[in-house]
């Protein structure tokens, strides 16, 4: 890759203008793309420089053997998990070599951010690196960031498709899927050895392009029927030959067909007719999707996820494979009225009126009736704004695609997943002309970008057309945009702007995570007894009457009470909550010395249900009961999509099964909202201390020790 002097100048300007914070131990700049190699070097450097707040994990390897990394950002000295507090006796470990150890940060609320799932959409990779830099260099100096890293965990996977990003950036072969497009026999290659794979254009009467009148560097597509007498050209990627009409360019060789990783996930992968709809031989057949899914299902603490793509400057929420009726009303409100509202504010787009006045939603619905053909909009009360949409095409009642990652995140894992399509020159380049999207002149934006390239980059992002004699296609010219600057935020100022905006959005989302706490835990010694069996308690409603035994004895009969509260804004699960297979209720344990603690009332572990958050979800009038909408649709792995059966209580082997009734029975099962009061009666021998532990999959695990005096 050629280094331009201008870039060096740009770098210097950037460094000056940004004035890196003092804590930035690993400098990072955004004057060009890092690609796979630069990204790996950066995150390795960060992991080495910040061992106390990061961990670098290789979650798998790409089809061509490149490691896929997740950088875990969290204070490695804080956090705990329940398995560290419960003593297991007589373990049957003869057959089980692999013991499942949870890491301390798995006991913290988590957020996931990834980029580069489509290889040629690496703006997201840059935003990931920017976010990493903000977090690690802000730790210790910025109070908000510090507390986020102490109490939460952020998983960043900057390149989910290493082969695609490597080819797109390092080799300048624009590649969406995995594998190696450059390995194809007729794949792109640098014919004139100028260091770039650009385009080859040659005159041909059957061509569909002509030279643009206003800027001869650009080509304009003309339909065959156009009467223009201008010379017609065929334009192909350098090294490739024109595809037979209708055929797609050659796929990569060596690793089978290139798989679009973002169509390779298990949700909505099948067509309604039971045939493959997504890519690959089966869902998660690509090593990239497999690595991501396997890592994620073993880290159940994630509630917020971002899957960065380019371009367009808007965000997809779910669903993409099913209509909006697949979501509970509460989740729709969280998505649109909380997340969407913030996003629109950040990108400077008007927030729909209905989002600002959710209490008037019924009126908005009435107004929409008759005004739109979109029945889902009527049901919801508003049309989706340009900047915040779902993949599903509501007007045509048609899914966007098959097997997208965010649908999987939400429907099969239970996270508020979004895909932001980064980069919209009109929004992200200051002073960029506002181009009418209806304009017939398709080159308007292109000319403006070229102008920007001329002014800000000295024209270096575009290679001037030069004559070239193609061995097979004959005389023509090679030139055009350097492909890596296409479709992605231009480096330097525009990219920095995109990064900053989306860092703010992601950090806002971080602030919404649930956070369970034990606000109070007390041990009240009622009396002592010589026998644990002597104590009895009579329970009437919430009242426990203790029948006292002897005044002195070796057992202390102790009433333990604890108040547990979710201090975070959102509930500890999406609306489907613990019903989603793999999810569970929040649980409280009371743990003491097993030989010296007898439970008289209450059980060692009890289920708390799902703790609501502190935030009043706009438009949601009642408690969490209103959250589970009847329209809940199951994880339709197969086709036709199946309705997820409600798990019958008492079904063994299922969370919510056999122990649910027993566990919840002792404590007020009716408790809702963000708080729970729990109570036990235990006989404790001696002064053995007790521990109350609350463990919530997505709300964190916290411990409080209680001295028995």
């Amino acid at each position: 890759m050629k280094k331009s002097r201008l870039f060096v100048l740009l770098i210097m300007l950037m460094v000056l203008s940004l004035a890196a914070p003092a804590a930035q131990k690993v400098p990072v700049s955004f004057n060009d793309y890092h690609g796979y190699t630069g990204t790996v070097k950066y995150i390795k450097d960060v992991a080495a420089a910040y061992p106390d707040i990061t961990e670098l994990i290789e979650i798998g390897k790409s089809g061509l053997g490149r490691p896929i990394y997740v950088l875990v950002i969290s204070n490695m000295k804080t956090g705990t998990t329940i398995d560290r507090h419960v003593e297991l006796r007589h373990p049957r470990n003869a057959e089980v070599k692999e013991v499942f150890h949870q890491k301390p940060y798995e006991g913290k609320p988590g957020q996931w951010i990834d980029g580069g799932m489509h290889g040629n959409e690496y703006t997201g990779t840059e935003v990931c690196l920017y976010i990493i830099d903000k977090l690690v260099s802000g730790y210790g100096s910025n109070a908000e960031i510090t507390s986020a890293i102490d109490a939460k965990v952020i998983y960043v996977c900057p390149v989910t498709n290493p082969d695609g990003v490597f080819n797109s950036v390092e080799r300048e072969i624009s590649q969406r899927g995995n594998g190696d497009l450059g390995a194809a026999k007729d794949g792109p290659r640098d014919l004139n050895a100028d260091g770039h794979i650009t385009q080859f254009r040659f005159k041909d009467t059957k061509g569909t392009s002509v030279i643009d009148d206003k800027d001869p560097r650009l080509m304009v597509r003309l339909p065959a029927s156009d009467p223009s007498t201008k010379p017609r050209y065929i334009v192909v990627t350098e090294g490739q030959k024109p595809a037979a009409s209708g055929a797609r360019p050659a796929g990569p060789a060596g690793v089978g067909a290139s798989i679009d990783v973002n169509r390779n996930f298990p949700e909505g992968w099948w067509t309604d007719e039971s045939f493959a709809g997504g890519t690959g031989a089966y869902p998660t057949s690509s090593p990239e999707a497999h690595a991501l899914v396997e890592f994620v299902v073993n880290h159940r603490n994630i509630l917020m996820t971002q899957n960065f793509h380019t371009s367009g400057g808007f965000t997809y929420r779910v669903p993409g494979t099913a209509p909006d009726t697949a979501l509970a009303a509460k989740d729709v409100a969280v998505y649109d009225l909380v997340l969407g509202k913030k996003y629109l504010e950040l990108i400077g787009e008007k927030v729909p009126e209905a989002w600002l006045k959710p209490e008037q939603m019924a009126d908005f619905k009435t107004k929409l009736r008759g005004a739109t053909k979109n029945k889902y909009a009527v049901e919801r009360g508003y049309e989706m704004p340009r900047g915040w949409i779902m993949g599903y095409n509501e007007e045509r009642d048609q899914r966007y695609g098959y097997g997208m990652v965010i649908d999987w995140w939400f429907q099969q894992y239970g996270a508020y997943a979004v895909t932001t399509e980064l980069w919209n020159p009109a929004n992200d380049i200051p002073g960029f002309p506002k181009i009418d999207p209806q304009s017939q002149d398709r080159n308007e934006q292109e000319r403006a970008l070229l102008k920007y390239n001329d002014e800000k980059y000295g024209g270096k992002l575009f290679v001037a057309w030069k004559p070239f004699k193609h061995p097979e296609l004959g005389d023509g010219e090679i030139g055009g945009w350097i492909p890596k600057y296409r479709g992605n935020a231009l480096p330097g100022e525009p990219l920095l702007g995109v990064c900053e905006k989306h860092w703010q959005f992601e950090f806002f989302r971080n602030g919404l995570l649930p956070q369970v706490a034990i606000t109070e835990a007390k041990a009240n010694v009622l009396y002592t007894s010589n026998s644990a069996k002597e104590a009895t308690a009579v329970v009437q409603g919430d009242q426990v009457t203790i029948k006292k035994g002897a005044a002195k004895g070796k057992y202390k009969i102790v009433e333990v009470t604890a108040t547990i509260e979710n201090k975070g804004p959102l509930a500890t699960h999406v609306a489907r909550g613990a019903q989603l297979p793999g999810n569970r209720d929040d649980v409280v344990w009371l743990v003491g010395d097993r030989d010296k603690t007898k439970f008289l009332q209450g059980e060692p572990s009890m289920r708390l249900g799902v703790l609501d958050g502190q935030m009043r979800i706009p438009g949601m009038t009642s408690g969490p009961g209103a959250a589970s909408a009847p329209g809940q649709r199951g994880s339709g792995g197969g086709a036709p999509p199946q309705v997820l059966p409600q798990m019958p209580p008492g079904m063994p082997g299922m969370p919510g099964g056999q122990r649910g009734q027993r566990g919840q029975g002792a404590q007020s099962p009716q408790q809702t909202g963000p708080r729970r009061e729990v109570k036990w009666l235990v006989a404790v021998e001696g002064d053995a201390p007790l521990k109350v532990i609350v463990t919530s999959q997505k709300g964190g695990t916290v411990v409080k020790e209680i001295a028995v005096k």
Partner: protein
Amino acid sequence: MNALKYHKLQRSSRRRDSVHGSSRGANRRGQLTALSLRASWRGNLVVLALFIVLILLPTPTPSFAQSKLQKSPAGYHGELDFPISWKRYYTVDEKNQIMRDLQAKYEHLADIQSIGKSRQGRDQMLLTITAKSTGKPEAKPAMWVDGAIHGNEINGVTCALYTAWYLLTRYDYDPYVYDLLNRVTFYILPGLNVDANDSYARYPNTANNPREPFRPMDDDGDGLFDEDPTEDIDGDGEITNMYAEDPEGAFKLSLDKRLFIPVADPREEVQRFRRVGMEGFDNDGDGRINEDDLGGPDPNRNFPFDWNLSNGRPYPLSEPETRNVFEFWLAHTNIFGSFHFHNTGKLIMFSAPPAARVTMTPEQQRTLQERNAQRLGEMRKTNQWAQLFDRVVDPAYQTDMTALTEIVTMGARILKDYRPTMSGLVGQAQAASYYMLGAYASLIELWSLPLDADENKDGRVSDEEMLKWIDIELGGEGWVTPHKFKHPDLGEVWIGGTAKKHITRTPPARYIEEEALRNCQFVLYCASQFPKVAIDKVEVKPATDNLLWVEVTVKNAGIYPTSSDRTVQLRKDVKDKLTVSMSDNVKLVEVPEGQTLLDPTNPADRVLAPKGKSAEFRLLSRGAQKFVYLVKLDGSDGWVEFEVTSKSGGTAKKRISFKQ
């Protein structure tokens, strides 16, 4: 169909010519056909002094001639060439050693490989069995056989391993096996869920566990993973029931003190017991026992087709054991059929084609069922094994349904007390095999509670009946007598009063081989019905002086079509192909392409006039296709040669020579 007919069927479809070097069969039949020149119905009778000689071109001959051919059922079939006891279960290491030894001894027939590693790092060993001298394994249609995807169903391991042993030891002796291995490949994976298979074979377990691969899973939702499994707390090698003395309990000891029986009379003054559950500790101290056993998802709900999160979580092919298998399938497109051994219930389950998208009223459904029941009754008057299923299949899949019905009818005949039925979808291996690969898939549920133990014929085997059966048939071994034990968490408990594990789900040692033999025979029968193409007859009809009509019929001798309906729907089918070549002085004369009815009085006599020198088609179940060519013969001598090639049905060639 009876056994005799079944054997005849086999023999008639066998390639005799190359084995015995005689010119019987096809050769002679061909000559007869050529001589029976009949006048064309058009009436343009032309007398030709034409001699036609039919030559059967040599097909690949196995270099290992069957030197030890055994024709008598009383004879020796090679069993002791590789002696092995089928009266016990093997651990994974022992089984792997047997596989390696088999491969080493029968190198000309077998390859061995690991298709991948399990979660705990065990190899999933696979034998590829075919006569290498007749072609590479991947060039022949293949039967996949696996056993014990559910860890505890290890008689499936035995059935798969037995099939490998049966094929390998008999190849030199048994003409049926010889023919089979000359044209079919077997991929045999005895033990799919190797970690759990090994646990079940080596350690104390209940009859039902461990079923899944060992992915840690929080079954009880308390935040801990697999923390409270069953255990053999008294160390007697069995995990059975625990009972506690309880004045309110519903059980008492039987008179012989060998089992717990319900207290019938509530006033009875007797020592009473309550059932606590299976043997185990309270490992995590939460007051409950065995509430979070080892193991993750059901591996047979973990395949991608019709997968759902509830049954197959966390995601399709999440387990290395299932993923390795499916990746192997994807890489071996020659797999034509598959067998998956499970237990229990004695069922022949098959992946049935999808139902037609018609909605029937309950009334229509009932009518259909009644009509089917009536038809089945009629059918069973002539064939007691006849089968009929209440499924109206999508018309595009009728060939598959018909072929599968015929196959499982024979399955019922071979396996006798096994009942054919359609299998489910929801992420099951056999559903993926049929619906994603287009392979004909069968799931066998082996073994069941010994039904002859049901002495009072009330349809169930009571504890007393089971105990009696164990006493008589197993000499008393197989029962755990109740005994006291001091439980660290529960105090004094009684353990026992239950059958041991190799009784209800897996057969006791002495019954293993009988089960394996019958099931092996059914696998082999299915493989014998893989498509087998042949050029049936060639007829020559003079048209004019030097123009000849040449009619050629190609046929498939197998019950299975040359590609399944599902393969066609998946657009993965490879068409059968007939190509014609001829001597320089013979020219093909173009005739209008398409179906022709040469003889209007016989609508069955359809011929296809193909365009050019090759035709593509699909031969159905025992199907035939007739083609007609018009050729022009210049001079006195010449020849025309036909070759039919089928991806799964093999190849065949025939040449006719003209002499004037």
